């Protein structure tokens, strides 16, 4: 199953591009599912259909759904949800509002991943296209399986440490309901089993992200940062879509002369920033792209020369190579800022910090016991050297990359 996720700053046309990709792929005979992951769903508005959490047939070979955290919660997290609702009711919160509140943070991202994994597999789709929330939420979505694993580990320990001892006492003293072991069991079962599958799906070479941009300064700046972050987490990008280029006729309008000039520079900038990824382009339209026909036409224009479900470009990813006296880990980090980089090793993981982001990179087993011998960053490549403990004199070289 090919999985393509579209992301980018708000308002750049992610939903339109994602829907156009799906419509075009379906028209070319691929069995396609499009999933909206943005809690503020616009997919239904663009397809001009009311969508729900189950795949809805839109056209031959094309189904659509809007991930719904509330519905997923009801399906998978039955006991947790019941518990929360009871808790809110106990608080005297109106049932209607309680229902809204019973959404745990992160539930929306999880709902999307589960929908993609389960519906995608069960439905036998060739291609699943995901219309993601803006950049930051996308990263949260793609790193959720890792994050959830750590959070769960901590939460379960807290639960074991505190509640198992205190609950029986508290229960006797207080009327408020407390979560019992069954609630935690539900969380654990749901998460551990499925998380492994979700992680495998995200790491698959058949899964790629496409960045959507427009020729605007703020949009390109954000896409550049997103690109660095995606590389940090080793999530493959295969193309950039540049939307809303002025058509020739529009370039003649005096009011837009300056836009036209700037646009040319921005296009070159985007091509060099994201090289070697291909940049697909789509023109500004004098009408909003709404409805299946318009989307199909938009998709045909976008994918004139390539297939919408192909892996369009490949960038180097993390690499481990043996060298004299140890191993070398290379991680491409385009446009990362040297000053914000920091590397350390913690048990079997390499902790890489880039600005506000932090990745725990799991090392292959044979490297896990090595120590950090040095790290440097040059020409957008982070190189970390690992050596047997004691072999290297300088832990000093570690830490901030000089």
């Amino acid at each position: 199953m090919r999985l393509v996720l579209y992301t980018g700053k708000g308002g750049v046309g992610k939903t339109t591009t994602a829907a156009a990709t799906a419509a075009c792929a379906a028209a070319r005979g691929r069995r396609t599912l499009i999933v909206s992951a943005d809690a503020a769903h616009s997919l239904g508005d663009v397809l001009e259909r009311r969508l729900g959490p189950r795949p809805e047939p839109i056209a031959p070979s094309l189904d659509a759904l809007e991930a719904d955290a509330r519905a997923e919660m009801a399906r998978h997290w039955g006991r947790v949800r019941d518990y929360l609702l009871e808790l809110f009711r106990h608080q005297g919160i109106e049932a209607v509002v309680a229902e809204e509140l019973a959404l745990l943070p992160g539930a929306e991202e999880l709902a999307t991943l589960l929908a993609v994994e389960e519906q995608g597999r069960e439905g036998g789709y060739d291609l699943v296209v995901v219309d993601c929330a803006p950049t930051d939420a996308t990263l949260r979505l793609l790193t959720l399986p890792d994050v959830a694993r750590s959070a769960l580990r901590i939460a379960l320990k807290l639960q074991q440490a505190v509640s198992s001892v205190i609950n029986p006492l508290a229960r006797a003293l207080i009327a408020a309901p407390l979560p019992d072991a069954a609630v935690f069991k539900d969380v654990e079962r749901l998460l551990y089993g499925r998380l492994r599958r979700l992680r495998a799906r995200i790491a698959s070479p058949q899964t790629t992200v496409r960045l959507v941009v427009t020729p605007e300064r703020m949009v390109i700046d954000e896409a550049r940062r997103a690109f660095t972050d995606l590389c940090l987490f080793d999530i493959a990008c295969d193309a950039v879509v540049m939307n809303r280029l002025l058509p020739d006729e529009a370039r003649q309008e005096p009011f837009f002369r300056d836009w036209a000039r700037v646009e040319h520079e921005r296009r070159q900038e985007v091509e060099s920033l994201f090289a070697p990824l291909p940049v697909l382009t789509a023109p500004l339209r004098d009408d909003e792209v709404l409805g299946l026909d318009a989307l199909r036409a938009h998709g045909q224009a976008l994918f004139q020369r390539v297939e919408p479900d192909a892996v369009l470009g490949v960038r180097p990813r993390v690499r481990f190579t043996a060298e004299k006296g140890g191993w070398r880990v290379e991680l491409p980090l385009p446009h990362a800022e040297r000053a914000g980089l920091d590397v350390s090793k913690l048990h079997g993981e390499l902790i890489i910090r880039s600005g506000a982001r932090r990745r725990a990179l799991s090392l292959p087993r044979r490297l896990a016991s090595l120590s950090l011998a040095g790290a440097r960053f040059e020409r957008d490549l982070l190189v970390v050297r690992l050596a047997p403990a004691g072999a290297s004199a300088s832990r000093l070289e570690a830490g901030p990359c000089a």
Partner: protein
Amino acid sequence: MRVILLTGKGGVGKTSLALATALGAAAHGHRAFVLSTDPAHSLGDALGFPIGPQPRTVCPGVTAQEVGALEELERSWSAIQGWLRGLLHEKTDELVAEELLVFPGLEELMALRAVREVEARGEYDVCVVDCAPTGATLRMLRFPDVLRIFMENFFEIERRGARWLRPVIGRLGGSKLVPQEEFFEAFERLYREIEDVRQILLDGDRTTARLVLNPARVVVEETRRSFAYLSLYGVSTDAVIVNRELPPRAAGGWFARWAEKERLEQAEIVASFPVPILHAPLHPKELIGVESLRRLGEEVYGSLDPAAVLAAGRPVRLRKDARGTVLEIELPNASKEDVDVGVHGAELHVRVRDAQRRISLPDSLVGRTVASARLEGGVLAVIFEA
């Protein structure tokens, strides 16, 4: 301190308008603070120079800051970290604040705290918050309620339990399992701070939201949903700002059809938002830098004081009573004969004489049957069957 939340669909121009609002407020003599709570910060991109997690002066009268969840955590959570560190002893030395960041929801929490800190400094008359796109903003506004419930239920219990157990468990050699009193104090302090923010956000005299949108179908649809949700969560919206309107001199030639579409959407906007509607045109150049943004503020607000409360009240409310769930809608000046109500999919259509308002229903009401509707004292109460 006045708090103005700027939110709306992604890409509509929230950041530019947040800065324009603050610069406009400063021109009216207010000391203004701009706080970005969108984890994908772009204040710096709009100004053309970097803004970071420390407050920085943009120009006389305007200070800006981009909330960094990591920095905030490192500053304030040492007691909680300490306990966790003991508990997760396998990583004794290495557990840092960053580990805690894995808990979803913490970013929202830190953003809320930052609002309170601006107020606590006492140096500002108005705080303009450049919020994340709508979905995330609603999650942020919901957060204090979730936390409050957690605190009232678990917290006191566990604290009492811990006091009880500490001596007992201590004798059994398991003292590290029971959190020390400082842990609870740190947590409680945090909770009080968030409770303060809740008070600030729900005080309609101090806090209002301004929704930014563009005259395009999909944007208007989403903004209408946000408007209803903000109101339901207790935040009043005091203005809607229509950004990037095609100016008349650009509306010819290739853009004629575009301009026509915009006119239709403008009518929709008037029908959807019963609050002042402000306007900003599309410019022939990108608006980057203090001077451009200041002019944008003048265009939007004219002679209005951007820090003023431009409209009061929450026009849509939800409550539950013996009859079922009641959706209340402010309809001043309407009489019973004038009003007609109907549910269409996920929307409630309210017709008052010739004007129709479309109100997005909260998810929990979609698909339910209307039992009755009545108009009393300028408020339309629509009762849904349970």
